[in-house]
């Protein structure tokens, strides 16, 4: 699948608008299931080609991470490559999974959610593209996942987890399916120096709580609701240095082939030093300070219409609008949003066509018996 996208940020920097177009989220995936050792073996692989199409990043005011600011970074080519084995002992089902993929933390990959544009809180609410081993147990409507993984986040599309960092971080996620289509999750993670591959950076202690409503149908969950809160505390030498929070609610509903969605988000982010390309920040880091901290209040709406082309493909024209207001939460600050953007009120409009396959919106980021 892939998305032809035209997007306009107004203002993008210093009062000037910027309009760009890309092929975003170009992906291919495969999965298979079989029986082995009296259990179920499952393999999942997702190839992400944004390294070819999105090297400069995708305009996304407020987003940050992996050396990009106000742009979404491209993901690594091997987005997921996970092998899991599931077995059952009486009412208890358990699984082990290993490979490269999502840590059991937070909410679903934004790529599998109603909006094309990522929320600002991506790095507060998901931990992905790590070399990981996950153990999960499930009894009835309750599941518990625990994982060890490498803390270092990717430094580019071609990057792989650092061998020396494997297993230096962990996460735990508990899930309760209160009734079909109603899911409550709580998770916590200790991520060692994600922003410095050498392991010298600040350590993150992350927590996340979410309620998700929606039963998967042929085109995803309809209706769908997600309410989540996330917090990341950054520690240096055991001392709390910075705290960032996020509160997000998004919902969608389809009527016939038309789907509408709305998202509200309040997220604080670190404002990092910028390079000559103002959408990039230094990697590797030059020091471990920040230039400020800003709060982003964003409201987004989206409308899309799905059409099937034969049995094997779908086309989905869509439009999205996001309005954000940004202000510093700490003063004095080196990063003054009004100075940098030319305004503290930012608009982002996007139109495009999502090309995919039926069932392309299946949930992503859970393995083994933790899959819904």
């Amino acid at each position, binding site marked *: 699948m892939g998305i032809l996208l035209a997007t306009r940020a107004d203002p993008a920097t210093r009062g000037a608008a910027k309009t760009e177009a890309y092929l975003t989220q170009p992906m291919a995936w495969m999965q298979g299931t079989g029986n082995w050792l009296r259990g179920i073996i499952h393999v999942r692989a997702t190839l992400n080609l944004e390294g070819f199409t999105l090297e400069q990043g995708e305009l996304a005011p407020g987003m940050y991470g992996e050396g990009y600011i106000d742009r979404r970074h491209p993901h690594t080519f091997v987005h997921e490559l996970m092998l899991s084995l599931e077995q059952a002992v009486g009412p208890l089902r358990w699984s082990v999974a290993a490979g490269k993929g999502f840590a059991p933390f937070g909410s679903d990959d934004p790529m599998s959610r109603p909006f094309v544009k990522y929320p600002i809180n991506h790095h507060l609410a998901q931990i992905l593209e790590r070399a990981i081993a996950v153990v999960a147990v499930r009894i009835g409507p309750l599941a518990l996942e625990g994982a060890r993984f490498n803390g270092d986040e990717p430094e580019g599309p071609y990057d792989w987890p650092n061998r020396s960092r494997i297993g230096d971080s962990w996460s735990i996620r508990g899930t309760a399916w209160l009734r079909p289509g109603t899911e409550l999750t709580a998770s916590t993670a200790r991520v060692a120096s994600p922003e410095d591959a050498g392991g010298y950076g600040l350590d993150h202690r992350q927590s996340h709580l979410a309620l998700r409503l929606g039963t998967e149908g042929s085109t995803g969950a309809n209706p769908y609701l997600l309410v989540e809160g996330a917090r990341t505390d950054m520690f240096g030498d055991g001392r709390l240095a910075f705290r960032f929070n996020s509160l997000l609610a998004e919902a969608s509903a389809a009527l016939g082939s038309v789907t509408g969605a709305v998202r509200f988000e309040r997220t*604080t982010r670190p404002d990092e030093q910028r390079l000559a390309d103002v959408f990039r920040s230094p990697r590797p880091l030059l020091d471990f*300070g*920040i230039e*400020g901290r800003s709060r982003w209040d964003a409201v987004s709406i989206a409308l899309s219409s799905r059409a099937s082309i034969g049995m094997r493909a779908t086309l989905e024209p869509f439009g999205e609008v996001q309005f954000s207001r940004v202000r510093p939460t700490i003063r*004095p600050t080196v990063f003054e949003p009004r100075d940098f953007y030319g305004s503290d009120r930012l608009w982002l409009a996007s139109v495009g066509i999502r090309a995919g396959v039926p069932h392309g919106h299946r949930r992503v980021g859970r393995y083994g018996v933790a899959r819904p």
Partner: protein
Amino acid sequence: MRHGTRPGRSIRTRDGRSGTTAHLMWAADRFVTRLRPLSLGGALVLSLARCDSADLTEPAPLEPGPTVPGQLTVAGLGAVPDRYTAEVWVVGTHAYTSTWGRRGPAQTPGNMLYIWDVTVAAPRLVDSLLVDSSASTLGDVQASDDGRLLVVPTELDPGSIVIFDLADPVRPRLLARYRSPAITRGVHTCELARVNGVLYAFLSVNRGSSHASRLIVVNLSDPAQPRSVLERDMGEPFIHDVFVRDGILFTALWDGGTNIWDLGGAGRGGSVANPILLGNVRTVAGNAHNVWWYRDGRTGQHRYAFVGEEGPASTGASSSGDVHVVDVTDLTNPREVAVFGVPGAGTHNFTVDEARGILYAAYYNGGVQALDVRGDLGSCTVAQQRSDSRCDLTLMGRLLATGLLDQNKPVFVWGVHFSGDALYASDMLNGLWKLTPISR
């Protein structure tokens, strides 16, 4: 505006938000509020509300320490409103300040060197010099001990040092620009020092995508033709600064602590081109940022080195990190014996009035802190110790004065320079301050 997530308790926004955004947010809040009838969902939303309200907390203000004997007297301010001020160096009647980052609606880069007349109470700007149009930061500036050369490092890509002739102190003349394939992401600091009578520049080079952080030493015997005599990778993860005196080199290696090297002064066979490692000390919490090897003006002893720790900071607002006192009586076995800290603020660069035994530390939002560093810093009563047995200079009554905290405006002091009859402080937010140093 009131948020409706918690009956009977409002989360008040700070800016009196109104208009379209406010209505959209109000609608979103109402949307969230309607989830409350779901029992677990209600608990979740309440938790989220708490989570968000916590975000309204501003960073802790600078905490007052124990009684401070005095305030350093401010003579005047030379204001720099259009760029962030970085380091300061003074030669005779003129001061030079470098600049950092990007500031204001024009995002004016830190590529300018300012030249000041400091014969008056408030430093007077007499000229400015565009050092490198492609640079965004000039994080350091230093003159040679004879006052004839001025050297400025540039960041980021690719980075260099720029060497000026100070024959006319108001109009530095470009002599040379030293670049190297071994420098790809800037020179963070540059210290000038003489070893065996030869002037060298010690460059702390940022790590790049393809190379580690490294120390480069450049021979400035012919300043128009600088040449490298040493390139050595070091630091965990980087080298940040050095201090050179009497043929001994101290390197601040962040989490790698502080290394002490023989450049010939220790008689261990070292040289500038081939430093021999003598010892290492990993001060508490790491982040070894800068060093000053102190020579007591009365006794001539070199017993202590002061290591600055730079902890996480939000530039302009908050900072962290202590001054660590290392006993280097035995250069091969240095050990930390004392510490000085200011709750809510962190140290940056130092200058020392060695004749009077006073260390002035730039302390970012903590202004300037003046410490008595004469005598024995490693012996103290139990009551003057921290829990890890290090002596606490504050509890020992070593804090003599603070500076710039009485100016009724935020300060963020990057550097300090003691010139003999005055103390200068470069303040990122405001410019160049001139203060009256402590006399005793």
